[in-house]
């Protein structure tokens, strides 16, 4: 009995030891060196895996950061400057300060502004609807309202507004990952510079039709009249294809362009009310 035990223990010990020795050498031979800084960087990332940086996930972004010689092309939109400073510290590099961004849906074609001219009753996703029809209104450029952007958002930053017919971005929740930008088949969503107090002055329209056609389809369409372009002192506004565009990086929020717009296509948000036309403004704010 005791001999059997001894034999068993001895055999297993020999097998165990030899396997350990083999494994040791195999591990040495096929060792894959991984920079420990990758783990360290990854731990400081938000772990949202949203892909907003352009990489497959936070791990892939961490690998890219460690490989890079400077961080100017790399940015984690979710973490912002704070995260990038930490990453730079770990890697001993210089962090490049970047402006925070926020998504904006450039269509204000709510039910009141855009009359319906037909009814679509097919599959309710924007991707399918836009591949089959131009939309339920005469504006072929505007929001369809089926919420592909809402489905794409991992951060609950988009709300579907049945009362408006177009979704709205909740600025506080938006991390500017760009998932909605990809999802929108009408290319309505733009990542714009985030100003203090979420203030913004923006052309909420993508209609590239000629003025008359655009105006007929939607009361608040940009008609490309270029009045705002003339008004702007900072060259922030350009007109292309009958459509004005305000470059948020050049815009100084002077708000001179909004009053001259004949169709109210330029939206100003989160500003204190103007001195003139106080009543109108208040009404608008309560509607939001």
């Amino acid at each position, binding site marked *: 009995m005791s001999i059997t035990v001894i034999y068993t223990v001895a055999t297993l010990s020999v097998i165990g030891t030899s396997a350990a020795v083999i494994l040791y050498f195999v591990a040495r031979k096929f060792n894959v060196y991984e920079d420990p800084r990758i783990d360290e960087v990854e731990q400081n990332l938000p772990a949202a895996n949203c892909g907003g940086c352009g990489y497959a996930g936070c791990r892939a972004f961490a690998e890219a950061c460690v490989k890079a010689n400077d961080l100017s092309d790399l940015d984690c939109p979710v973490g912002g400057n704070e995260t990038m400073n930490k990453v730079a510290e770990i890697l001993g590099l210089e962090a490049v300060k970047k402006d925070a961004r926020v998504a904006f849906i450039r269509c204000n074609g709510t039910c009141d502004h855009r009359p319906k001219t*037909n009814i679509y*009753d097919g*599959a309710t996703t924007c*991707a*399918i609807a836009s591949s089959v*029809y*131009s*939309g339920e209104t005469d504006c072929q450029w505007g929001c369809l309202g089926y919420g592909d952007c809402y489905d794409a958002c991992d951060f609950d930053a988009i709300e579907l507004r049945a009362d408006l017919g177009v979704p709205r971005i909740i600025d506080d929740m938006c991390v500017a990952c760009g998932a909605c930008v990809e999802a929108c088949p009408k290319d309505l969503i733009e990542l714009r510079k985030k100003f203090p107090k979420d203030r913004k002055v923006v052309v909420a329209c993508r209609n590239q039709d000629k003025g008359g056609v655009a105006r007929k389809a939607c009361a608040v369409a940009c008609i490309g009249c270029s009045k705002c372009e003339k008004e702007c002192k900072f060259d922030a506004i350009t007109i292309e294809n009958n459509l004005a565009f305000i470059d948020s990086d050049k815009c100084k929020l002077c708000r001179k362009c909004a009053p001259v717009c004949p169709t109210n296509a330029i939206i100003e948000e989160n500003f204190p009310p103007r001195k003139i036309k106080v009543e109108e403004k208040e009404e608008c704010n309560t509607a939001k």
Partner: protein
Amino acid sequence: MLKTFKKGGVHPPENKLSSGKPIEVLPPPASVFIPVAQHIGAPATPVVSRGDTVKVGQIIAKSSSFVSTNIHSSVSGKVKKVDFQADSSGYPKQGVFIDVAGDEWIDEIDRSDELKKEFELSGEEIVRKIQDAGIVGLGGATFPTHVKLVPPKGMKADVLLINGVECEPYLTSDHRLMLEKTEEILVGTQLLMKALNVEKAVIGIENNKPDAIQLLTEKSKTYQGISVVALKVKYPQGGEKQLINAVTGREVPSGGLPIAVGAVVSNVGTAFAVYEGIQKNKPLFERVVTITGKAVSSPSNLLVRVGTPTSVLIEAAGGLPENSGKVISGGPMMGRAIASLDVPVTKGTSGILLMEKEQSKRKEYIACIRCSRCVSVCPIGLEPYLLMTLSEKQIFDQSEDAKIMDCIECGSCSYTCPSNRPLLDYIRFGKGKVGQIIRSRKK
């Protein structure tokens, strides 16, 4: 036992309301909009400009590549402008607006009704004339006919199939054409046979048109090589691949063209257009359109100039019924609802169907219950429920493996689904995306 295709198929109610109505000529409207893209392939390039005077049959847009066709004016008058107008999808397409004045035809066109049987043209000359006359497949897909008649190198057709199936419910334009232009279709068939250099042509007709079968069988006896086959009624027998399978028993391989099994298919309407194009020098600028619907006061078959607004056709059939829900260009299975009544008739418009509100509403869709009815009715043998899910989840590499590109978009799956799932909507979307992926891979 009548012939039919093997796999799948459905039996929607036929509703051929206008089958007893002779073809009437609709006079040219006050103004037309003729799109430059009325066919599969590259859009034609406009060759007229504002203020030009045009005659009926004059070329207004030239074919821009091999897979493209000429567009001819369907009316005489003054070109108002060359501009964009929304098509049935609501997206603007380029075209020529013409204000109609009189009805002056170009001199080359022979406007007599006399039947002209004899021709002494070679195959190449016929193909060239078909190309010049802007003839496309009039069954609905509008593929340029001259392209079909030139088989790729190393392939040879041995049989021409003439499609007189008209399996779409409601539509009767091909039926009426077969009854009223019987000999013209047979001569057109002979011209196509000569162009293809084949000895044999078969006209396939579904058994719900016994008068057409009888008439064509009788008349075809004097034409060498042409025979008529009666087919069992089943949708989508009018699909190219289904017709080949029904008549010859051959199966077109996945991803292949009908020519791969030695067959070329043309519609009866196309055969008639070929007759007119070659024997009468008349380019394709008008076609027979069925205007129908349960609430329409007088469903009819009209000979309509291309470019005529849909509203004019509806007026001719007794006006828009009060409880209309949808206006569909084409048949109820494969046609598409149009977003505006200004949408013009094009070469591919086989019918205008006015559906009542109740009829046209889609029911709310619920979860898939895995009954696999869509699989059993698919004439290609695909798994529509799977293709829909893959499109929904945007897994396009797997949908390609599941042969999404072989889908003929007949809609049998959506028609038969007990959960009212929009299978075809999703499959079409997936097909578009997979097509893009395949094209980008080739580059």
